[in-house]
């Protein structure tokens, strides 16, 4: 059962062969016996899951079932879940049980889906290896058979590892600079970062508000489409969420790709990319040519500035967002504060981990008097240049394709001592967040037994086209079905 997709599990439940309670119990049992190897969950919410499963079975009996009714999945521990601890991977929120649901959480509940628990992540979504979590690192299921403990990527590393290890068929993620696509690539699953504003951010703990976007992580493009059908849509509670119709993302999955124009940004096939990775990515692109697509080279001349712009904008916004963690109203508070300033400064020193503190300090510096123009304003201008590159490229082609990462999953601990080397992990993903356009990671081969992701980048609101292109690729390849030993 654990190898089945969301679409397949949905059909099993529909046929009446098993109840959601039985299915949920099977997944919970497997999760408990297997996750010791990966540490992909922070919280398993058995009681709530079984209650949701019972409600789902009743919903079905009443003839009100949706595709998702009774199907198990998991939330990244950044989405607030009423009554279930939401830690964001931080000591700061270790005791935080939200009194409300994120909009994404509420939408899955409404569809009757069964949430098994909350997945591990880099603290406050800051990281590319899931090593900054207060709850310990996540281990990538790939490579374990050789005795290697590799990172799953981050920050949605727990969701990616759990889906790859078949602990859940699907999980939510969030992507601020690559945090859905990079772990999806390193764990060999399918992930989509939607257009900025496509999915509500209400109740999704904020990191960098002009970049953060929630999205689906699953094994197939079809399942990602089923997830996005639930997640997308306007929300009056998020003023940046776009009011625009949501198509049925599964309706166009089978459109033929004949005539699809693919652009290859030459800056993303640079010497940063390992030759073995490049070979896999180019092989995948040849599959698209066989499906009737045409390929041409394009240029994103300002893409090289993306990491620099990101490491001003993201920390600046984070420093403002994370100022709410003050020890006064919820979350961690230091012991015996002697005055208000002592309470603030010790609560934050003790509650935040090193990477989070580094970013708050960089952001505070960039926003401080005398530096605002040179850093934040300059970065916002460069951001527009980067966006303009993409707009120009989409005048010529329909989809851009590139690698997701320069190399496959690395060994735990390899990059933790040098923050900048970790930041470079996102060299091919960050510009997409700055521009606010959608992009996917699709399994596209292996190097030394480790998964390689193909990145597909689309114009604003082209999620349906990306999912269609990914689905067609998955009809002629089986990379997405490979299972870690």
């Amino acid at each position, binding site marked *: 059962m654990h190898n089945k997709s969301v679409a397949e599990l949905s059909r099993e439940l529909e046929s009446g062969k098993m109840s959601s309670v039985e299915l949920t119990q099977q997944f919970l049992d497997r999760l408990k016996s297997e996750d010791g190897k990966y540490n992909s969950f922070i919280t398993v919410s058995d009681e709530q899951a079984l209650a949701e499963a019972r409600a789902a079975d009743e919903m079905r009996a009443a003839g009100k079932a949706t595709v998702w009714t009774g199907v198990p999945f998991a939330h990244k521990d950044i989405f607030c879940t009423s009554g279930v601890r939401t830690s964001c991977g931080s000591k700061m929120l270790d005791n935080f049980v939200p*009194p409300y649901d994120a909009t994404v959480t509420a939408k899955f509940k409404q569809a009757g889906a069964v949430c098994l628990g909350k997945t591990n992540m880099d603290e406050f979504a800051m990281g590319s290896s899931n090593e900054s979590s207060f709850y310990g690192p996540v281990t990538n299921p790939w490579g374990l058979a050789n005795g290697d403990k590799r990172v799953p990527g981050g920050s949605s590393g727990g969701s990616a590892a759990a889906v790859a290890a078949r602990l859940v068929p699907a999980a939510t993620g969030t992507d601020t600079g690559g945090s859905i696509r990079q772990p999806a690539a390193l764990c060999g699953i399918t992930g989509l970062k939607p257009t900025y*504003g496509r999915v509500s951010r209400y109740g999704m703990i904020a990191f960098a508000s002009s970049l953060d976007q929630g999205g689906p992580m699953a094994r197939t493009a079809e399942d990602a489409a089923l997830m996005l059908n639930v997640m997308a849509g306007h929300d009056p509670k998020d003023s*940046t969420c776009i009011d625009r119709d949501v198509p049925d993302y599964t309706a166009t999955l089978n459109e033929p790709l004949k005539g699809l124009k693919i652009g290859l940004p030459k800056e993303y096939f640079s010497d940063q990319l390992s030759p073995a990775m490049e070979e896999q990515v180019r092989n995948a692109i040849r599959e698209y040519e066989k499906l009737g697509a045409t390929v041409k080279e394009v240029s994103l001349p300002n893409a090289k500035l993306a990491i620099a712009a990101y490491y001003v904008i993201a920390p600046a916004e984070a420093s403002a967002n994370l100022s709410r963690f003050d020890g006064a109203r*919820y979350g961690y508070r230091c012991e015996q504060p002697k005055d208000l300033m002592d309470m603030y400064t010790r609560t934050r*020193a003790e509650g935040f981990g090193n990477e989070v503190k580094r970013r708050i300090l960089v952001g*505070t510096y960039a926003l401080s008097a005398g530096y605002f123009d040179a850093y934040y304003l300059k970065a916002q201008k460069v951001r527009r240049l980067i966006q303009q590159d993409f707009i120009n490229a989409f005048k010529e082609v329909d989809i851009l394709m590139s690698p997701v990462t320069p190399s496959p999953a690395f060994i735990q601990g390899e990059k933790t001592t040098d923050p*900048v080397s970790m930041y470079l992990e996102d060299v091919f993903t960050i510009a997409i967040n700055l521009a606010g356009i959608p992009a996917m990671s699709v399994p596209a081969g292996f190097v030394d037994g480790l998964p390689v992701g193909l990145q597909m980048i689309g114009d604003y609101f082209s999620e349906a086209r990306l999912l269609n292109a990914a689905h067609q690729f998955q009809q002629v390849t089986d990379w997405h079905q490979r299972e870690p030993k």
Partner: protein
Amino acid sequence: MSISRADIEKVAVLARIKVDSEQVSALEKDLGNILDLVDQLSAADTDSVEPMAHPLDAVQKLRPDVVSETSQREAFQAIAPATEDGLYLVPRVIE
């Protein structure tokens, strides 16, 4: 671009994060490296470029000014570190 110990100490106060002198040394190196990375921006010609705040240049939507939420003080205060008579308790601010 480097950052001085004094800058780090000042920024730490602004950010309300206590740092000890040992941490300042580590931060001097890490933050210096991050600022070196960020310094690539200065090479970009952005003279006639408008800063970008929202990818779709969306403007803030306003809702009617009517009461839409109910009071949930008890639920919110149930997760607070310290409360009394419906108020949040913090160390004394005014002597």
